[in-house]
């Protein structure tokens, strides 16, 4: 091959490789679910509403519709966003309401039945304050479907088992449990991970695979900004 031909082939090959690498980086490595931003309201507090679903409607989640998942309600539009990333201001009181649309799953370690890290040390289940929600007491139903825990601030709250199981998230009917609690965001800004401690990844070994290890389902990040 002559010199100009070789140079051309080389340049084309180089551009193809670089282009491919950039494509892989942008498409597969960066990117992920959206972050829902919360700002303090008039009384200096943040209100956050979430729901947990047994599975999602394939329209809402075409990727893994059979996976159990949390949804967060957008404070601006009121729509349910399929994400587990949210942003809150530092040193602010956050009031969380979780609508539980899933049935019960026995928690693997009963330690997580205990409410920790909330303001007052309690969580309210349909208005009743509770410090310990026994996850194994099978009478009449198991009591826990998931937990919401931010280990970095020692927050752990069980989400009460629902009266029914909604399989087409995000769900809007009245067949849900209501878990309410409040916590103070830390003064130190940064990224705080949160996760569920109930092995609820159905048909994954130990129950901790799949949705338990994927952003947008049962674990996420709390971004604390100043």
């Amino acid at each position, binding site marked *: 091959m002559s010199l100009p031909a070789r140079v051309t082939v080389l340049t084309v090959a180089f551009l193809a490789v670089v282009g491919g690498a950039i494509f892989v980086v942008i498409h597969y490595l960066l990117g992920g679910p959206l972050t829902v931003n919360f700002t303090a309201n008039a009384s200096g507090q943040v209100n956050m509403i979430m729901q947990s679903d047994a599975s999602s409607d394939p329209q809402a989640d075409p990727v893994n519709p059979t996976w159990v998942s949390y949804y967060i309600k957008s404070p601006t539009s009121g729509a349910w966003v399929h994400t587990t990333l949210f942003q809150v201001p530092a040193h602010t009181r956050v009031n969380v309401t979780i609508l539980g649309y899933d049935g019960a799953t026995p928690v693997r370690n*009963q*330690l997580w039945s*205990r409410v920790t890290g909330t303001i007052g040390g309690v969580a309210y289940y349909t208005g009743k304050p509770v410090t310990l929600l026994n*996850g194994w007491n099978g009478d009449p139903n*198991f009591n826990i479907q998931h937990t919401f825990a931010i*280990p970095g601030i020692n927050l752990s709250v069980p989400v009460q088992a629902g009266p029914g199981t909604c399989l087409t998230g995000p769900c809007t009917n009245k067949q849900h449990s209501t878990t309410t609690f409040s916590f103070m965001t830390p003064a130190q800004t940064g990224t705080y991970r949160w996760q569920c401690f109930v092995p609820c990844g159905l048909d*994954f070994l*130990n129950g*901790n695979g799949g949705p338990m290890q994927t952003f947008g389902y049962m674990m996420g990040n709390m971004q604390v900004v100043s």
Partner: protein
Amino acid sequence: MATTEAPARAEAERREPNHGLRIFLIWLPAALAADLIIWFVWGPHMPPGDQSSTAASQQNDINVMAIMAAPVMAFVLVYAGYALIVWRHREGDDEDGPPIHGNSRISATWIGVTSAIVLGLFVFGTVELVVPAGAGAGEGNTPIWRPSGGTPLQVQVIAQQWRFAYRYPQFGGFETTSLVLPVGQNVQFNVTSLDVIHSFWPYQLGVKADANPGVNNVAYTEPQHTGTFTVRCAELCGIWHADMTTTGQVMSVSAFRAWAAATRVQLAALTKILPPYALTYDPNLVPQLGKAFHQAGLSGAGGNYYGSQYPVQP
């Protein structure tokens, strides 16, 4: 002419410096200096510090090995440096070097010295492994190197995805996410896991024990100074492996007892619903959890992975 060659050759041999001696004379002060700096300057600050008996012993261990390694490295580097300077190719010299194929004395000496160093390190390592009761490494469920002096404080480390939990069986078996230890007392860590392989690693205490599901892994140490220490997970266990950290505390014995009593009371309601203290927690074998899983139609291995007809004991 033969008569003029012999004196010329002998002259050349006399003028040839004693390379071996030179290398030795450069190496000796370098090795000594390195060893002295390691022992006196670096040594007291060598990781992992001396907050516990096992950490102090490892610090000593690493110091000794560094002192053995420094002269070896110095020898190779000094020799190589000398060779690259003195025996480099000079312009215009196209001759080959002397045809030395080997020297059995040198080879035998090298093999002997390296074997001696290595075997010495083996004996030293074994002694250091036995002496502070297993050197803080997990010994499995039948430990053979135990500290003397009665039953140590039992702390069970329960690793799960993705947080450590700790149970104190001698204080009613309460379970907490805080790790508090008394100073000056032997501690026995019983490390187990509920799902995948983790590794319990309180860095400043010089302990590392893998947490395997269904297995009890025992490690011993004795904290020697009060203060805080960081526990990290040292075996990749999934996405939040980097975040499985605990800040532990070593306090005085009386402060520890006070903490244990207060926590026992505070967590009494929780302790009542925990399974009885056991060395491993197979969900099939913990009665309440096994029953709970069965009633929910899930299998003990969690997540219904093996279908609801399991667990079928093999």
